[in-house]
């Protein structure tokens, strides 16, 4: 059973609309995530998380399960080589809630296969991406997250 689940929470001094836009706008994701998030963001549509190198290869693919700006985005999530295998899909819910003059962004990544490469990849990955997003929205500068990867 794919039941591994992680919850990440970060507070960001920005408007909910801005945070939501930063999750789905490829022009913005490339600045702090160093990948383009590409989709028309309609429920049922395909989405891709594309690397910025020459070939623009997708590193993550899936379907948009729900997109309710500026509150909630739910995605299915798989590596491209596992796209045909439903059992390899995990699920990511991004929730944006205003708290005082800040935003609480909660990322829930669930239905992960215990011991899988995807599980290993995301458990270091999300804190880094979220710190970079916070830095990008609050100061205009992302963290140099790619440099810390081998």
């Amino acid at each position, binding site marked *: 059973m794919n039941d591994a*689940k992680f*919850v990440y929470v970060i*507070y960001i001094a920005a408007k909910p609309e801005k945070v939501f836009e930063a999750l789905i706008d490829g022009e913005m994701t490339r600045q702090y995530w160093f990948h383009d998030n590409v989709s028309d963001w309609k429920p049922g549509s395909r989405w891709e998380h594309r690397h910025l190198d020459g070939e623009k290869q997708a590193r993550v693919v899936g379907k948009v399960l729900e997109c309710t700006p500026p509150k909630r985005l739910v995605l299915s999530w798989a590596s491209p080589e596992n796209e045909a295998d439903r059992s390899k899909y995990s699920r990511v819910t991004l929730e944006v809630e205003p708290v005082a003059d800040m935003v609480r962004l909660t990322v*829930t990544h669930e239905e992960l296969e215990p011991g899988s490469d995807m599980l290993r990849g995301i458990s270091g990955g999300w804190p880094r991406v979220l710190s970079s997003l916070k830095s990008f929205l609050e100061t205009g500068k992302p963290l140099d997250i790619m440099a810390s990867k081998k």
Partner: protein
Amino acid sequence: MKDEDKVFKALADANRRKLLDRLYARNGQTLTELCKGLDMARQSVTQHLDLLEAANLIATVRQGREKLHYFNPVPVHAIYERWIGKEERQRLTALADFKRKMEANDHE
């Protein structure tokens, strides 16, 4: 209190670190599960968990009648980003691996 002070204060207690260790080992536990085998009153576990949540070191999710606790590594990652330069990371990982190996040999 500043958010950062909350994080360091929350981490400055062995019982709270133990609770985080237990969630790190198995994420998404209920209060009852977390209390099992701990030499702490349920009431004080609840207080520690509240403090950890206020410091954003844990996140809670309601599931039916239960409340599940998840370790949130984001503030710990911010500490790491603050003091560990990107050019040092590989060397520090190598050093930590070396220490682990040496200490494991000692126990053979």
